[in-house]
């Protein structure tokens, strides 16, 4: 049983490495957030659940941690992306921008890039 736990922890660590690599390689803040959010969420998932499986006493607690992370982690990155956009961080070679109209119609002066 604990072997499965350790394997899950190693998989989690590998996803963290991928997330870090994405953070370095992606060209702008939005693409970086994408890589970082997905990799760290699944990384934490499997790391924390791995701990829970290696130590079955903690399993319910780790499950609860995973649930809270799944709710809060994406909200954090959404808000970061929104704040960057409103502040005026330039996106990397956009093929489409429908967000522009939304902020224009709301009368937000900072989002006119």
């Amino acid at each position, binding site marked *: 049983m604990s072997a499965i736990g350790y394997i899950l922890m190693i998989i989690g660590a590998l*996803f963290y490495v*991928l*997330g870090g*690599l*994405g953070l370095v*390689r*992606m*060209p702008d803040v*939005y*693409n970086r*957030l*994408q*890589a970082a*959010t*997905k*990799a760290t*969420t*699944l990384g934490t*998932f499997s790391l924390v659940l791995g701990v829970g499986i290696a130590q079955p006493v903690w399993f*319910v*607690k780790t*499950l*609860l941690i995973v649930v809270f992370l*799944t*709710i809060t982690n*994406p*909200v954090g*990155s*959404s808000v970061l*992306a*929104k704040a960057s*956009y409103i502040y005026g961080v330039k*996106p*990397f*070679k*956009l*093929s*489409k*921008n*429908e*967000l*522009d109209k*939304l902020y224009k119609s709301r009368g937000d002066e900072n989002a006119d890039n």
Partner: protein
Amino acid sequence: MKKYLSTFITLWVIWIALTSFAVSEVLTGLLVSLVLAGVISKVVDYSFDFTIIPKLFIFVFVYVPVFIVEMIKANFDVAARVLNPSLPLNPGFVKIPTKLKGNVGKLTLANSITLTPGTLSIDADDEYIYIHWIDVKGETPEEYQKHVSGKFEKILGGIYK
């Protein structure tokens, strides 16, 4: 009153899950939840009744497996993009129509979109969710929706209003 009871039950369940099922813990949790629910229920704007039990069942056994499969796919997608030397990107901000009206339903949908391949939800208004998409496919909002949130929208539509 309904809000108070919903908050109270949520808090109590979390307390018991975080500690253990011993009598002393259950009683302490009862007291703490009774007091805290009085404070918190004025701020929250959600409540549930007995229909939550079948809904929770659908949520856990239909939605969660679909979601976990999509999340693992998302990670392999990110891995493939990051490890590819030429960085295949075609990013864009697009809007996706949604029929969900409630706050909790929209939050769940937006979170699911964020954790699935190539998309990151940024903002929402009454009818649309605005996303950053790493690899835009299609031309109209309906086509986008089919790619991004089609599966989730169907399941969540049965759970939330």
